[in-house]
């Protein structure tokens, strides 16, 4: 029941939010639904619910990680949205909250689906739920952004659908008792899957979900979308939506690894990882616009995720952990940038002196910078360390050094852009009310959590990560 409730509650919430006209009512509805969702997730952690719907919907550790990420991030964004909606009144406010909640429902479906087809349906639904949110300003730029987002994501996700069918085709040799595209059966009988179709499925699913993750060179929608989306939506996208897409890639890898074809998948994943890092490094340098900067930083982190996945061994553990850390750190950074945009009216990076004019948000921005670039003792450091260690442990010392050089470049680029707006004499016209409690409470929580995760990985989380790594064919360090 819990599992279905996780999807149904936000879906009903979406409908409920659309039903009423009052803004206060809608924000309360948003907060309430996300709190209930978070409660359900907690309940699912306390006692793991059994699979339902013939094993199509189930909760394993990898799914639980993604689900938790999305739920926590959504709660934070919901709180943030309360403050945000006071300053920005998006046109079609009703649709705003409804779409947010619809996204939550779709995301829950993705996290819970143990059927690759359902996974695809959820993924497409989450893509579509986000689209109206990007367009909420109804101007040319956001229109262009949403158009590119829609077309590129749709093409990507169409490729993923083709891959899903390939996966079903790969099952032709297994006994008819196996349920098609159900994860447990795919994994359980992976060695009997047809290798060529499985590999083809992997290629298309990777390209498809990779587009949604924003792996270079499939990332091209990302900067435009992140640059135009409202900050709460951006935070959800770079923390939540990417995690969902990664889950798609991870599920595929899970099957491929179980089939003993990891040696086919790994070079591809590593290749995507390195290319993403290179592209991120190239575009982060000299990037003035803060939100586009975050988009490229997101490309970087997606690269790290598939890199860890591709390295195998402890790298998968690193990836799973990095998924959590990335969501927290990027969510924090995006909301902090959101405050900057609220205060200065632009994310173009032309403001100065936020450290004086907007101290709390500026501090959050700086913390986010160091967290997102993997400085110890923040959580991302831990996961990046594990991934890099997996690289050297796997004998990829050169790769590790290249990655380190790229990470250093990205750090330099991000530090230049972000610290430039923090320091200096404050620009005129910065609205200090962006440091309001509603607007900083969420990011502060994220900052503390991401710091905590660098120092203390709670036992249940550690256990989940270990199982997730094992499911992906790796081990815990």
């Amino acid at each position: 029941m819990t599992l279905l409730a996780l999807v149904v509650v936000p879906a009903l919430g979406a409908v409920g939010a659309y039903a009423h006209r009052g803004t206060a009512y809608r924000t309360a509805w948003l907060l309430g639904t996300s709190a209930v969702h978070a409660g359900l997730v907690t309940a699912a952690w306390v006692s793991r619910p059994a699979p339902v719907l013939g094993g199509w919907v189930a909760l394993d550790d990898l799914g639980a990680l993604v689900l938790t990420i999305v739920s926590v991030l959504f709660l934070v964004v919901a709180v943030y949205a309360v403050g945000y909606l006071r300053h920005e009144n998006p046109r079609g406010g009703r649709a705003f909250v409804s779409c947010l909640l619809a996204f939550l429902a779709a995301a829950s479906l993705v996290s819970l689906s143990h059927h690759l087809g359902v996974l695809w349906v959820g993924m497409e639904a989450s893509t579509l739920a986000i689209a109206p949110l990007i367009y909420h300003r109804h101007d040319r730029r956001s229109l262009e952004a949403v158009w590119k987002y829609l077309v590129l994501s749709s093409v990507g996700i169409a490729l993923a659908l083709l891959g899903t069918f390939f996966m079903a085709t790969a099952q032709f040799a297994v006994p008819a008792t196996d349920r098609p595209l159900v994860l447990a059966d795919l994994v359980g009988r992976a060695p009997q899957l047809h290798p060529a179709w499985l590999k083809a499925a992997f290629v298309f699913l990777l390209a498809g979900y990779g587009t949604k993750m924003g792996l270079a060179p499939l990332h091209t929608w990302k900067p435009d979308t992140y640059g135009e989306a409202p900050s709460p939506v951006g935070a959800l996208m770079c923390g939540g939506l990417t995690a969902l897409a990664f889950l798609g890639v991870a599920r595929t890898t899970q099957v491929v690894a179980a089939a003993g074809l990891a040696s086919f998948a790994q070079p591809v994943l590593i290749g995507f990882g390195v290319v993403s890092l290179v592209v991120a490094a190239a575009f982060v340098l000299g990037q003035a616009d803060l939100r586009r900067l975050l988009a490229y930083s997101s490309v970087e982190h997606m690269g790290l995720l598939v890199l860890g996945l591709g390295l195998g061994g402890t790298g998968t553990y690193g990836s799973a952990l990095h998924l959590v850390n990335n969501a927290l750190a990027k969510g924090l950074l995006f909301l902090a940038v959101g405050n900057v945009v609220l205060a200065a009216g632009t994310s173009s990076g032309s403001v100065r002196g936020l450290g004086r004019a907007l101290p709390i948000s500026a501090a959050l921005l700086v913390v986010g910078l160091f967290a997102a670039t993997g400085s110890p003792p923040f959580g991302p450091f831990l996961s990046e360390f594990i991934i890099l260690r997996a690289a050297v442990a796997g004998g990829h010392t050169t790769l590790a050094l290249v990655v380190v050089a790229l990470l250093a470049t990205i750090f330099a680029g991000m530090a230049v852009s972000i610290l430039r707006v923090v320091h200096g004499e404050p620009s005129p016209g910065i609205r200090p009310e962006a440091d309001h409690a509603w607007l900083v409470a969420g990011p502060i929580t994220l900052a503390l959590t991401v710091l905590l995760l660098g120092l203390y990985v709670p036992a249940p989380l550690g256990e989940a990560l270990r199982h997730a790594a094992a499911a992906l064919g790796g081990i815990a360090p």
Partner: protein
Amino acid sequence: MTPLLVGLALVLLGGVAAVALARRPHLAARVFVVLVVSGAGTALVPAVRVLRGAALATIELPTQVPGGPWVMGLDALSAWFLVLILGVGALAAIFGAWYLAAEVEHGGVPQTQLGFAFLLVALALVVSAQATLFFLAAWELMALACYFLIVFDHRRAEVRRAGLVYLVATHAATLLLIVMFGLWSRHAPDFTFASLAAVAGELGATRSLLLGLGLVAFGLKAGLVPLHFWLPEAHASAPSHVSAIMSGVMIKVGIYGMLRLVAMLGAPPAWWGWTVLILGAVSGVLGVLWALAQHDLKRLLAYHSVENIGIILVGLGAGALGLAYRIPLLAALGVLGAVLHTLNHALFKGLLFLGAGGILRATGTRELEHLGALARRMPLTWITFLIGSIAIVGLPPLNGFVSEWVVFQALFHAGLSGTPAALAVFGAAALGLIGGLALLCFAKVCGTVFLGHPRTPAAGDAVEVPAAAWGPMLALALACGLLGVLPGIVIPSAARVVATVAGIPADVIGELTRPALSGAARISVLAAVLLGVTGLTAVLRATAQRRTAVAAGATWACGYAAPTTRMQYSASSFAAPLVDVFGKLAGVTVERTAQAFATHPANVVLDRALEPAWRAVRRAGARLRPIQQGRLQLYLLYIVATVSVLLLYLAVFGGAR
């Protein structure tokens, strides 16, 4: 360990209190000083006990992350650095409270105090961390705290630039350390230092790689040439008491890292010893040479940090050669020299930077060409600064001499060893040159800042700093004097550090360092002789002068009647003959006109190598930019192309399982 934790907590509390009491700056400063000093004092207790031979202590922090527990422990090596961190740190905190008082209305002071407290705590944690992730976390905390201290005056563009260069450099170091520890830990069950040290024997060829990576990463922090590029600007930009900590203490953490690396990995290969030795010699010579070219007081002092890191590394290199070629005496003397010089440099460089801060506050400038004649206006600053200068030049009877003396002996013993290490004796020539150049440089500093005529009204109207400022300077000066005259009091403790690093039992080290100890006693006698002869000569001259007239007059100007202050020898011209000798290496552009002579120093590595490299990287990045030109059809083509490439891969590798 408890006093250490309590002490560090007190230090941190001091920082927090400074922020909490931000509305009452005087009270905040006082509370900050009291808490930091008492915290440092408390934390020093276990460190001193360990240095006097107490057993090692460790605890595990209540963290829970992959890679094993976060162990915190104090051995002699940690304790030695802890003493230096907390000792200089407490004095700098006192000075800093006064120094920052003038900045209160500009804002940012409470945050700076907090950052300072964080820096001290992070430094202490770095040297007491005994597990990889803990070490890296403390390391980064140190780096970041320091960054925010450097950009205290972030309204100035050059400060922001210095901060950024520093930040990127330190982040690069962190990343290299990550690779190093990652490589190392793949053989170990967990990431604690104990486990890493246990697998040191199984590393094979990786060991060399680790040492190489460690040298670069820790070298970046220590500021050895050519990795020093971030250092001069950063040290010059930070508030002076922070500069004192950075130059005196923080860069030593790089040395600590190298020592810890040797301690954990065992005897390094000979190439590492040679590299360290040669880089040390190069850093020493170039550091002091570039210092000579400066006329910004703090930047000049920062370059001297490069020089002194060079001297430390010459010692460490000699010690490493001793370990590599199995010459215990050489190993003991080399590392002893390095360890002693680390302490000594912290004392006198801390003193000099505090002095520079006092001068900056009193005159408003750090530009040598704008100062002069401060000896009359600021006598206490002058005396302490002079003591620091004599110490840093390595002249008897002060502490700098003692450690250089040990390093020299190490090099001579290398020469006598009859092994390939004998060539290290040429390092002595480098040390000699460094000493001579340092003398020239500090003659320039003392002469232009404190002696002669004031070059600007600001220098002429300077007022002596209050006790809160000269107190810490005096304490450091007394320490310099004490360790110079009675070096025997620290050598046994330093020997314990050497035992930890070189992996030689303490009693054997005691035997090996006995000549140093007895020599130290003679140095005390020599100091007494010097004092005696000076007194005797003074008395003699006094008797002579009692019988004859002592008159005051104008300086003899070789017949010229009306010399002006503009005719005084300037800092640029003082260093000119030497800068001429070294030519391009000195990194100076000279401006010579009929009326004036001026030199413009450059940060050779940063300006001529890294800046162009950085621009090249950015250009390369810009080359990729056209791929994101906004056309959707093109983006779709990327997807098609990517899928095509993947399908090609599939076609090639798709068949077999």
